[in-house]
């Protein structure tokens, strides 16, 4: 009995496990946003003129736009002039190996349970670690280089492969696409760039760990992945963030380009700080993610497990331009306490025989509000296009909510879209059955929730799936008594 109570208390007290702040001196710009700040960012990064001009154009656009409010989420107004738009950890600019990395930083990774060293040597995963907007460690670069694969920080790519960056940057998400994408285009700090040349299969999962650190620093990551004809790559993005008391804006942009017969698999485990039990603090995660299946038979697959952030607002999308191209979206979104998520996908069928699959699993606990918003559009030329969508919601308790907003626009008579939706509750009888078999309430919830998410988890790379399951457990702690 006592043991039981203790474990539950420990669980409850655990709260946000990854909440700590690393003490690294930051080199920061003053808060606020104007052309001078953008020039500062660009010059700090020694960018070519064309990129500065691109940023400035985006900024001018952004000034004419209004923050969108059609989402099913609520938050106080964001003061864009109070945000710091540039901050970099102090360090030498060029790092060849981990010994050159600030030991404080390495310790941070250790706390997160993602020791770079182990990842590098044991897991066979190349890690491009993004820390406070500037990449500080890139591994496996040499090995990938032999295959002609480019994988590293966005800033490096700007210097080393300016033609590629220029060719593809903004080609999927134009700088004026939406309010947050425009903001990102103006001020993006760093991110990842990945290029898989024709016919090459990337032999390892590529991964990036994002982390927000310096106080009140908005994160504006920019990721661009290009798979040329017949190329294949699986990319993992995962993040955890330190505890803090001020809301933080995170407005990333991810662009994927798949040429003929190319395949890109993009997996995310998102665990930004969700705020405290009353919903204070926490990250605003307003992300634009879009993939372009430009070539025939190309395939782009998004898999996401969203457990963090105070507010999540993202719709990883696929433009199915190439004939017979395939778009997939597998999503688990968890909201607990006062978290809000408005997430889903857009599948835009343009080419013939294009196919898309959407599997969305929303879990709501506490006072959490979870909305699925999806658009399936079959354009005139999308002969024989097919979509299958499945949206399931699971409720824990009766103060939370699940909402589904599927939009289907079919402009081609031979195209078909199928939509299924279910809502269920974890039943007391299920919990009792598990308890009668010796499992604690927490374990029971974990088990049931993981069962519910199975179709999505099996799309994740093995080690990521295990991490995702654990994360779900932590996110739902204390949600059932």
């Amino acid at each position, binding site marked *: 009995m006592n043991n039981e109570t203790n474990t539950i208390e420990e669980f409850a007290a655990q709260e946000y496990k990854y909440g700590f702040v690393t003490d690294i001196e930051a080199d920061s710009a003053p808060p606020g946003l104007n052309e001078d700040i953008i020039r500062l960012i660009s010059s700090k990064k020694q960018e070519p003129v064309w990129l500065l001009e691109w940023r400035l154009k985006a900024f001018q656009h952004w000034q004419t736009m209004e923050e969108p409010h059609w989402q099913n989420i609520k938050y106080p107004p964001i003061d864009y002039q109070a945000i710091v738009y540039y901050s970099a950890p102090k360090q030498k600019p060029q790092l060849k190996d981990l010994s050159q990395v600030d030991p404080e930083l390495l310790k941070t990774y250790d706390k997160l349970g993602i020791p770079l060293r182990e990842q590098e040597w044991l897991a066979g995963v190349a890690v491009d670690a993004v820390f406070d907007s500037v990449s500080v460690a890139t591994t496996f670069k040499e090995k990938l280089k032999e295959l002609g694969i480019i994988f590293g920080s966005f800033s490096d790519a700007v210097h080393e492969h300016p033609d590629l960056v220029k060719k593809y940057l903004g080609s999927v998400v134009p700088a004026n696409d939406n309010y947050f994408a425009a903001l990102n285009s103006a001020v993006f700090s760093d991110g990842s760039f990945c290029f898989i040349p024709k016919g090459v299969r990337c032999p390892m999962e590529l991964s990036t760990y994002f982390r927000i650190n310096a106080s009140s620093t908005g994160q504006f990551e920019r990721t661009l992945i290009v798979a040329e004809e017949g190329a294949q790559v699986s990319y993992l993005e995962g993040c955890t963030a330190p505890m803090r008391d001020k809301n933080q804006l995170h407005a990333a942009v991810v662009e994927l380009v798949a040429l003929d017969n190319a395949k890109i698999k993009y997996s995310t485990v998102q665990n930004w700080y969700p705020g405290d039990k009353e919903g204070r603090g926490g990250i605003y995660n307003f992300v634009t993610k879009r993939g372009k299946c430009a070539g025939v038979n190309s395939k782009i697959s998004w898999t996401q497990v969203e457990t963090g952030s105070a507010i999540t607002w993202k719709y990883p999308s696929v433009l199915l331009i190439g004939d017979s191209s395939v778009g997939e979206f597998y999503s688990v979104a968890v909201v607990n306490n006062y978290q809000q998520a408005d997430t889903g996908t857009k599948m835009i069928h343009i080419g013939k025989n294009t196919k898309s699959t959407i599997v969305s699993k929303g879990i709501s606990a506490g006072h959490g509000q979870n909305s699925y918003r999806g658009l399936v559009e079959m354009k005139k030329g999308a002969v024989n296009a097919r979509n299958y969508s499945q949206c399931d919601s699971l409720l824990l308790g009766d103060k939370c909510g699940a909402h589904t907003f599927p939009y289907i626009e079919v402009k081609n008579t031979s195209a078909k879209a199928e939509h299924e939706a279910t809502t269920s509750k974890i039943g007391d009888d299920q919990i009792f*059955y598990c*308890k009668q078999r010796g499992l604690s309430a927490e374990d029971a919830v974990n088990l049931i929730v993981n069962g519910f998410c199975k179709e999505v988890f099996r799309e994740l790379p093995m080690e990521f799936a295990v991490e995702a399951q654990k994360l779900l457990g932590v996110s739902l702690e204390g949600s059932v008594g």
Partner: protein
Amino acid sequence: MSLLEIKNLHASVNGNEILRGINLTVNAGEVHAIMGPNGSGKSTLAGVLAGREAYTVTDGQVLYKGNNLFDMVPEERAREGLFLAFQYPVEIPGVNNSYFLKESLNAIRKHKGLEQLDAIDFLALIKQKVKIVEMDESFLNRPVNEGFSGGEKKRNEIFHMAVLEPMLSILDETDSGLDIDALRIVSEGVNKLRSKENATIIVTHYQRLLNYIIPDVVHVMKDGRLVKSGGKELALELEDRGYDWVHEEAGQTV
């Protein structure tokens, strides 16, 4: 010391008293059968013992292995070897039956201070156990009870029992829904699991089951009390004459 001692147990649901003074003692090695009309409180008794939240114990005492049962939360009772085969087994979509059992068995083993079974040892174990109830191995990889037929669910409960090796098993109408062959197979399975150390309480409406699983004592429950107890012949008599003739015997205890 008896395995289970129930003294003057009263319990209610939503303010309605369902159990009105149950007295029952079960020793290791024994099999007890409880029969009685619909709504007399048999499942309620099983639920109270297993710790179902809906019931409120208003009076009386239950000692399990000499300890106050009501000091233990439901999962603790399970880990201490109390097993309930549900009258209506619950479906858990998406959760693989054998994975569920592995978590369950390891929770029990952890409680007992035994080391955790890994996937390989566990698989070897369940392949043995599945034979006891002659269940097709395909049921191992299906989600717990989801889409199982009524009889398959009942058989699965006894499969769980075989794997978890409880001290005290309460089988709530496990026989209902089983076809003639399944009844025999499941009963034989239960008999194989019988030992000097464990005990079984069988709730049933049919004497037929007791031809296979021979009880040491048969009790009749009426209106929340065990009103009569006897040997296995009592079941035959009940089948013959129904419950109307049974009246409470003064000071009835077993």
